């Protein structure tokens, strides 16, 4: 199996960095540089598939309008008593088990979310404790819908530098805690879920260089109705300027996709799957059209059933393709996350070498 190109590992174990002379001038020991791979992927969705009919009243709309505008027929929403860490913990437990690891083998926990209600402590710290990974480094990422891909970039760098052997990257959102049922801009798109990956040491590089960035000049396009301290009734909810976000995504993300493939040293014909953030089916369709992907490239369309789950959408969509056998394990996938900020990140990854049915999960379900 051929490894993907990796970003240059500047400064790691460089002989030039180890200066001769006094100990104060000498280079410090670095972790052994190695290769990083995606070892496993798994996910959980909110238990309730909410159809369009249940949401159209407050926005004075129709099932047909929502379908034609978004491609969404249902969105997965969690039960009221669940919070974002509950969803994250379920996904984390599944993906650790799928990787054949135990929680104590996790060196770092990276949780991408925008739906954790506390400034501090981080959701990742609580998640690490909840799943039995006490002692792991843990932190949150606030990069909205690009959060998971940002997390993969960090995990890749940590593993390649030797700073960690196994990194748990989770994208988790309970967006239904942040919706206004009467909002016509975004609320009816949103779902709940959590998906994750284990990034670990591999024999060859399985994660291409991440192409990423932000454009804060467009920060007003997606966000909250107001700040937490600004006066208003109820809590802030999410809002967006949909057409402008659409335009930005369909004009800028194809460039990002090409940059990520170039950086990985592959072409579109090498891809097994194209898995963009599940923002809106119209965006997915337009990206496919502009990129002129070959027919054999499977396109993730999880949004039709799950809705837009922000940081969770890329791993959720990947998990569906693997679980349903739509894409072969070990194939190359192009991940693209983009959203509030505006943030964006893309990388080519080699999917895990196997994705067998989780028999432990079946056993657990049978016990219930």
């Amino acid at each position, binding site marked *: 199996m051929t490894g993907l190109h990796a970003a240059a590992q500047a400064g790691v174990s460089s002989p030039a960095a180890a200066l001769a002379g006094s100990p104060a001038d000498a280079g410090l020991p670095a972790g052994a540089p190695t290769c990083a791979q995606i070892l496993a992927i798994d996910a959980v969705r909110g238990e309730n598939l909410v159809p369009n009919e249940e949401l159209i009243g407050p926005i004075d709309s129709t099932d047909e309008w929502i379908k*034609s*505008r978004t491609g969404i027929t249902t969105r997965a929403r969690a039960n009221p008593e669940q919070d974002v860490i509950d969803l994250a913990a379920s996904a984390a437990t599944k993906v650790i088990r799928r990787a054949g690891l135990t929680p104590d083998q996790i060196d770092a926990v990276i949780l991408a979310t925008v739906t954790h209600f506390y400034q501090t402590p981080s959701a990742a710290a609580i998640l690490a404790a909840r799943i039995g990974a006490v002692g792991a480094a843990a932190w949150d990422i606030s990069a909205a819908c690009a959060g998971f891909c940002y997390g993969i970039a960090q995990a890749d760098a940590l593993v390649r530098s030797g700073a960690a052997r196994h990194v748990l990257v989770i994208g988790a959102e309970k967006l239904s805690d942040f919706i206004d049922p009467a909002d016509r801009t975004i609320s009816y798109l949103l779902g709940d879920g959590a998906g994750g990956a284990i990034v670990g040491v591999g024999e060859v590089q399985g994660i291409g260089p991440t192409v990423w960035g932000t454009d804060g000049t467009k920060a007003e396009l997606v966000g909250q109705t107001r700040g937490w301290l600004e006066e208003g009734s109820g809590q802030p909810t999410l809002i967006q*300027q*949909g*057409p*402008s976000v*659409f*335009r930005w995504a*369909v*004009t800028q993300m194809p460039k990002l996709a090409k940059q990520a493939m170039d950086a990985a040293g592959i072409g579109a014909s090498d891809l097994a799957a194209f898995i963009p953030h599940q923002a*809106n089916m*119209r965006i997915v369709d*337009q990206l496919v059209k502009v990129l002129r992907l070959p027919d054999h490239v499977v396109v993730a369309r999880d949004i039709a059933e799950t809705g837009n789950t922000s940081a969770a959408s890329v791993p959720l969509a990947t998990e569906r393709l693997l679980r349903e056998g739509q894409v072969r394990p070990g194939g190359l996938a192009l991940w693209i996350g983009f959203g509030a900020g505006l943030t964006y990140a893309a990388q080519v990854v080699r999917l895990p070498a196997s994705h067998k049915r989780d028999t432990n999960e079946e056993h657990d379900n049978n016990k219930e």
Partner: protein
Amino acid sequence: MGLERQEVLAGLTEIIVEETGLPAEAVEDDKSFVEDLDVDSLSMMTIVTLAEDKFSVRIPDDAVKDLTTVGAAVDYIIGAGESA
């Protein structure tokens, strides 16, 4: 040199036909994008983005809401071309 009106209308019609699947005959100066051509706000963004490339003009998001008819869009493109 400025853009010719007929040339812009013909080019814009091609884009609208591609995006909507409507016959070219349905696209006329006084047709409303929303009411007559069933162009929603996302399709409108696709149309103006393609028009930007085709006519080498800039059509900012804020201007799009005022382009209610095909004729208004043609006039805007001609104006943007003259000020470019």
